């Protein structure tokens, strides 16, 4: 082939490549789904528009603050809470402000916000059933624990639990504070209740439970709690090996329950049902075992 022809061919092919790239790019971009603003952006835009239209409307500002929090824009939320608090001591705003400040590590300011929220609501008519007051006690206890005031934190969590006894977060915080305060019996009681409400997928209560049992020198129970941490960390086989060694002795019922949960986590339905039945044979009222059998579709008689 003559060199001149070769050059011409190269030029022609390069032009074809360039045209092809443009064509493919056009087809590719025409084929793309339209880009739309995200749901959070839409809600934020709507909320901002509403607040601009009605700047004195407290409810709209609180709604916008919630959207900002969902969008991980705490400063925007703080701004809205601040605007609301200029009008008056709004409990929702005080609670939200306290939560954000606590997350940002501004503990003194957070504490002040929670205390104001408590001061406003604690003597009111519905104080014993007020979820915002419960949240404020919980938040204040959480801040106190971070400030190494474990005993004071326990007191706040106790108040939160009086309003909402089934608050697993408050139970966990109570247990954690009790471990730090050296009140091991109270720690075990609170943490066992916490894992009763949330038995799987939440590792921290089991970790603290192991700490509390260690402080009490209850080795089998500590081993059980440690195994449950492994189960929580998606290591059911390791957890089962540890739990299988505990099926007689003081941690037997807990261990058998853990074995049932581990079997469930490995989709071994028959084995799970076997362990739950064994739990019920030893403790006929065991709530978790009954729940486990119900999940497996196994009928359980009695109440």
């Amino acid at each position: 082939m003559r060199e001149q022809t070769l050059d011409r061919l190269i030029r022609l092919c390069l032009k074809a490549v360039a045209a092809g790239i443009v064509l493919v790019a056009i087809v590719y971009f025409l084929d793309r789904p339209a880009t739309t603003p995200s749901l959070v952006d839409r809600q934020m835009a709507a909320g901002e528009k509403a607040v601009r239209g009605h700047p004195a409307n407290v409810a709209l500002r609180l709604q916008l603050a919630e959207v900002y929090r969902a969008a991980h824009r705490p400063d925007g939320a703080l701004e809205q809470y601040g605007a609301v608090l200029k009008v008056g001591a709004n409990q929702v705003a005080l609670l939200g402000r306290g939560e954000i400040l606590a997350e940002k590590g501004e503990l003194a300011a957070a504490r002040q916000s929670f205390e104001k929220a408590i001061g406003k609501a604690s003597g009111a008519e519905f104080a014993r059933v007020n979820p915002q007051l419960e949240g404020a006690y919980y938040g204040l206890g959480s801040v106190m624990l971070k400030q190494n005031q474990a005993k004071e934190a326990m007191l706040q969590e106790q108040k939160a639990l009086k309003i909402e006894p089934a608050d697993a977060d408050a139970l966990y915080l109570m247990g954690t504070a009790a471990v730090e305060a050296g009140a091991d019996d109270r720690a075990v009681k609170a943490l066992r209740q916490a894992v009763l409400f949330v038995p799987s997928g939440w590792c921290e209560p089991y970790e603290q439970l192991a700490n509390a049992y260690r402080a009490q020198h209850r080795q089998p129970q500590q081993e059980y709690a440690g195994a449950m941490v492994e189960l929580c960390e998606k290591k059911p086989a390791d957890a089962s090996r540890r739990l299988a060694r505990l099926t007689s002795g003081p941690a037997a019922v807990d261990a058998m329950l853990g074995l049932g949960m581990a079997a469930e986590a490995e989709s071994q339905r028959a084995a799970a049902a076997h362990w739950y039945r064994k739990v019920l044979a030893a403790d006929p009222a065991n709530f978790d075992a009954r729940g486990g059998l119900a999940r497996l579709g196994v009928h359980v008689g009695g109440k």
Partner: protein
Amino acid sequence: MAPGDGTFPLGREPLPDAGGSITSGAADRLTEEERKRRRRKIAALAGILVVLAIIIYMIIRALSGNSPLPSIPSELPHYVSDIYGTDQPMGVAVSPSGGRVYVTESEGSRLVRVYDSSGHQLGTLKPPGRDEAWRLPVYVAVSPRTEDVYVSDRLRQDVDVYSPTGKYLGALRPTGHLGKGAQPLGLAFGSEGDLYMTDVGGPRQDHRVLVFGAGGKKPLRRVGSPGMFWFPNGLALDGKGDLYVADSNDGRLEIFNPAGKPAVSIERGVGEGDLGLPRGVAIDGNRLFVVDTTAQVVKVYRLPGQVTEVPAYIGSFGGEGIGDGQFQYPNGIAIDHNGRIYVTDRVNGRVQVWEY
């Protein structure tokens, strides 16, 4: 023409040596240089031709309805975008060409909204003579033969049929011994245009799958023994004719061979790949997708060669929330010919688009 000016030297004239005359040694050297240059040009041409071939391949792919860019092999898809405008969407289906996406709306105007593949609304479908208080479209499927659109209505207990242009063609109310009293829910088509419908009429004993011949109103057969299902929802068929049914309230996925005999199932549980409340089901090649509404995810399985084996769990995508790629009670699922996945994100009021 000079080297480095962006053009190619023609290279025909021999280059003079320093003294201006041509010696035989210099001539040999020039010939060698010429050969080298020519070899480089041929190599360059070959490279350009390879690139050109790839581009032509991509254009052919695009013209034949596939994505121009071959997807990078991946086990799970990634989030692409959302389609807004449907109030509490439940069911979703895509036309065989991929150009139309049909979404049922369970609140508000209770319409079937029609979008193009870019998410622009093209129109709506609704049965004539009834306002939204009297209709509740739930699941939707598109006939692969006629491209007619079939929509199950939970309130009216029938299936509304529309032409590809949106014209209302009538209601399919199952007749005959098998069809009497049926309450249609999930819909899917076999490759021959036969319609599969989950029926949730009456007590649990009567919940089942009904199979209709193309265009027929009288069920040809039922799938599932009495009491086997409890509110079966979505269903799908693979290329071999195996049937996959989301047995929702039992929390499992039942798989049947083409003869309608139960083969295997994916069970309810908390283990990896176990189900909670399965609703929508879709199949793309050897991948099975199941929307697990209460887990707020879509679970993905690899289909085995034999229907007697349980599909292998690959993983899930989604998670609870209002952010991009997060769900609040997802329900329906459909996959277009490009492998683009549409999932109705009911409480968030959107249809999410995912791709490989």
